[in-house]
């Protein structure tokens, strides 16, 4: 039956073409594998392009006292010690070399006075650590990786969406998807697969995430038998735009605070003094997001329910040079000149700490041949991610996943592709066209976003989460009867109908995990359990598939070796 379909064969198939996917592709290619990269959008448009602040790496160019140990400690503290310590260690140790490598491939960073890569301060980082290019670091990173990859010879399948992983027994053997342009189906055969599909923010109504962030990788991996971990930890970035309505949620980089921006409430009070007097605006994201939310909820918010973020005390030329895209974003979209007055900001759903459970060294999931890196994977960030640790995560674990996937491909032969799996995948995609009545995927999406925002947001309670879970499960049933209009030619409604399935899977996993964790830690704040709980501090929530049921269990965190424990107590 596979003859019926356009088929491509690679040693390593990478799903997602952001920082993690491209870095994995470059490494797999360097190991001699043939590599295919599939992405839903055009190459170079992945979410990495929006990363603004910088790449965290203890290069010690600005603060000579910095080293990997301090970066490790900051990352563990930021994640409230739920992080996979081995991932945090590898990340801190390898990030500087990954940044130097990027520079050797042509990335141009801002410089110190003696010509080294300049580093800036960021929340939760003890030292000035973020290598950056103004406030468009992600763009520089993705262009560099994109050009490197293309010139080395990766095959890129743009505007192609994977809807199912194919398996041969326990291992993965390929993927089924469709070309968005024509709606034609396509089969990829691969010896190993790397999930680099990013996050899940599109399940919430106010988000900094692009349309692609629908949790595809996590949901596809879950369907194929992979375990998900730490799904309750969804990061709300403290500073998204709040006004006008059309721009709600668009990110305002933490670099504004890194460069000296201050937060005030409507009374002019610098309220962070009450929440974290030591670190103030550069406290971790979970703390700042809750502070802004609380100020607004208690009646001290701005006109549109946020806080004021002000950088106008710095010279106008400096602001324009260090924060050029923020300057333009506010001038063009909100009629605000940030060199003259404050911005209005509020929390926006931004990043997923949880994801596919992987081994630290190899990025391999519990499904043979299936790997994951970047935001799609869990572990490095624990319960809260520090700003700047995402881009470094993409590089460090993208490379590791690419290496391990290529090694795996050397050791196994090509797997079988079963016709029945392809047939099921095709049925699933075609059925929405065959219904003569059914709901619009857009309507279901709006409802899901609203429910997740109101019931599974920054502050959570048993009652809300129970309601949220019921709502998600009800939407799941309704969404099985979704109807699609038009043809298969570049049809966003059809695409959303499939994306809904992924969003509902991850939304259920988030809500189930959040209900179970009866404590507050990092990004997970339970108003009914406001304190840390020692037992919960030593276990992760694990989500797995049991037939059609979603199963939740707990797994103890692994014991940290003595030499690392010492670092944390310093």
């Amino acid at each position, binding site marked *: 039956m596979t003859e019926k379909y356009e088929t491509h064969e690679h040693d390593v198939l990478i799903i997602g073409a952001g920082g993690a996917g491209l870095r994995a592709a470059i490494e797999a290619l360097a190991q001699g594998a043939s590599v295919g990269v599939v992405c839903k*959008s*055009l190459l*170079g*448009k992945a*979410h990495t*392009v*929006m990363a603004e602040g910088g790449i965290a790496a203890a290069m010690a160019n600005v603060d000579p006292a910095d080293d990997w140990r301090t970066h490790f400690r900051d990352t563990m503290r930021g994640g409230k010690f739920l992080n996979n310590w081995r991932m945090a260690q590898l990340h801190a140790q390898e990030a500087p070399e990954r940044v130097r490598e990027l*520079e*050797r*491939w*042509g990335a*141009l*960073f*801002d*410089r110190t*006075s*003696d*010509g*080294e890569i*300049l580093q800036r301060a960021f929340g939760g980082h003890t030292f000035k650590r973020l290598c950056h*290019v*103004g406030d*468009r670091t992600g*763009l*520089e990173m993705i*262009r560099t990786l994109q*050009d*490197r990859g*293309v010139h080395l010879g990766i095959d890129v399948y*743009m505007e192609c969406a994977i809807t199912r992983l194919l398996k041969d027994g326990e291992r993965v053997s390929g993927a089924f998807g469709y070309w968005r*342009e024509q709606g034609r189906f396509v089969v990829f055969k691969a010896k190993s697969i790397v999930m680099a599909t990013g996050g899940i923010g599109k399940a919430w109504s106010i988000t900094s995430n*692009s*349309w692609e962030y629908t949790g595809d990788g996590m949901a596809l991996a879950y369907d194929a038998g992979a375990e998900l971990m730490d799904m309750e930890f969804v990061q709300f970035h403290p500073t998204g735009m709040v*006004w*006008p*309505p*059309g*721009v709600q949620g*668009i*990110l305002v980089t933490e670099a504004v605070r890194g460069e000296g921006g201050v937060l005030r409430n409507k009374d002019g009070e610098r309220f962070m003094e009450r929440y974290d007097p030591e670190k103030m605006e550069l406290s971790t994201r979970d703390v700042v997001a809750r502070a802004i939310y609380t100020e607004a909820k208690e009646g001290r918010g701005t006109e549109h329910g946020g806080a004021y973020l002000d950088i106008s005390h710095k010279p106008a030329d400096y602001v324009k040079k260090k924060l*050029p*895209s923020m300057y*333009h*974003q506010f001038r*063009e*979209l*909100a009629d605000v000149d940030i060199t003259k007055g404050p911005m209005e900001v509020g929390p926006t759903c931004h990043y997923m700490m949880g994801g596919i459970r992987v081994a630290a060294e190899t990025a391999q999931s519990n499904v043979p041949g299936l790997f994951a890196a970047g935001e799609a994977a869990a572990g490095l960030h624990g319960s809260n991610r520090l700003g700047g640790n995402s881009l470094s995560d993409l590089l460090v674990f993208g490379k590791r996943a690419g290496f391990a996937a290529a090694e795996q491909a050397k050791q196994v032969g090509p797997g079988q592709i079963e016709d029945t799996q392809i047939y099921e995948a095709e049925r699933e995609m075609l059925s929405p066209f065959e219904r003569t009545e059914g709901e*619009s*995927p*857009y*309507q279901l999406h709006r409802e899901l976003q609203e429910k997740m925002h109101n019931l599974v947001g920054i502050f959570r309670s048993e009652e809300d989460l129970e309601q949220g879970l019921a709502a998600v499960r009800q939407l799941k049933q309704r969404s099985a009867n979704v109807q*699609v*209009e*038009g*043809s298969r*030619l*570049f*049809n*966003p*409604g059809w695409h959303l109908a499939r994306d809904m399935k992924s969003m509902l899977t991850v939304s259920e996993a988030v809500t189930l995990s959040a209900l179970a964790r009866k404590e507050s830690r990092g990004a997970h704040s339970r108003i009914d359990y406001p304190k840390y709980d020692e037992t919960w501090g030593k276990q992760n929530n694990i989500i797995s598939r049991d037939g059609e049921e979603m199963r939740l269990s707990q797994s103890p965190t692994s014991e940290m070796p003595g030499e690392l424990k010492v670092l944390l107590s310093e």
Partner: protein
Amino acid sequence: MPDATFKIFRGDRDGGELVEYQVPIAPGMVVLDALHYIQGHQAPDLAVRWNCKAGKCGSCSAEVNGRPRLTCKTRMDALPLDKPITVQPMKSFPVIKDLVTDVSWNYEVNRKIPPFTPRPNVEWKMDQRDVDRVQEFRKCIECFLCQNVCHVLRDHEKQEHFGGPRFFVRIAGLEMHPLDGVSRTKLLKDDLGIGLCNITKCCTEVCPEDIHITDNSIIPLKERVIDDFYDPVRWFLRKLGGKSAASSVE
């Protein structure tokens, strides 16, 4: 709030027509918001490319009232609302469906450009002033609006002989990289036909990143081509110095 009337191109490679839609206006609304409203309520299969909705990814290019724009940065309150707002796909690229065009040609041009290649034994130190000079070109978000308005491509359809402003900007970013060691002037002259540009600056006018495409990238690159190929003395001097046409990568 009143409604706005839109006339949007609906169709594919075989043709199409402008179709009218009514959209309620909200404060601060941009054209992309209106397109999303239409998708969500009236035409679920309306094809639109977009990603970040923040002017950072360059996906949502179209022609609004005949002007090439990023729809995510085109405010409704900056458009006259007493007549319909037309939204059409970029004219210089083949239509796939509705507002989505086939921009794959751009990726083919990019593949011809030799990547950053450091000079041998280079010391990885750079002066901020040298970096600043190049950053402008590296701001490009690949919205391809400059390619869309360039008359060499739009009117004369010289796609096979001309690279277009986007890739002159790209090459400027590589050529002026403080540590780069190869010359791309032969490529500029022969394959990418930089001589065909007669500096009308249409590209600069539409650039959403305010890159001075013509003044800062195309003209200096034209000068480099002239130096390397038409001025024997300067060609010889350059050959002795850093970059030489002889080391061009084909």
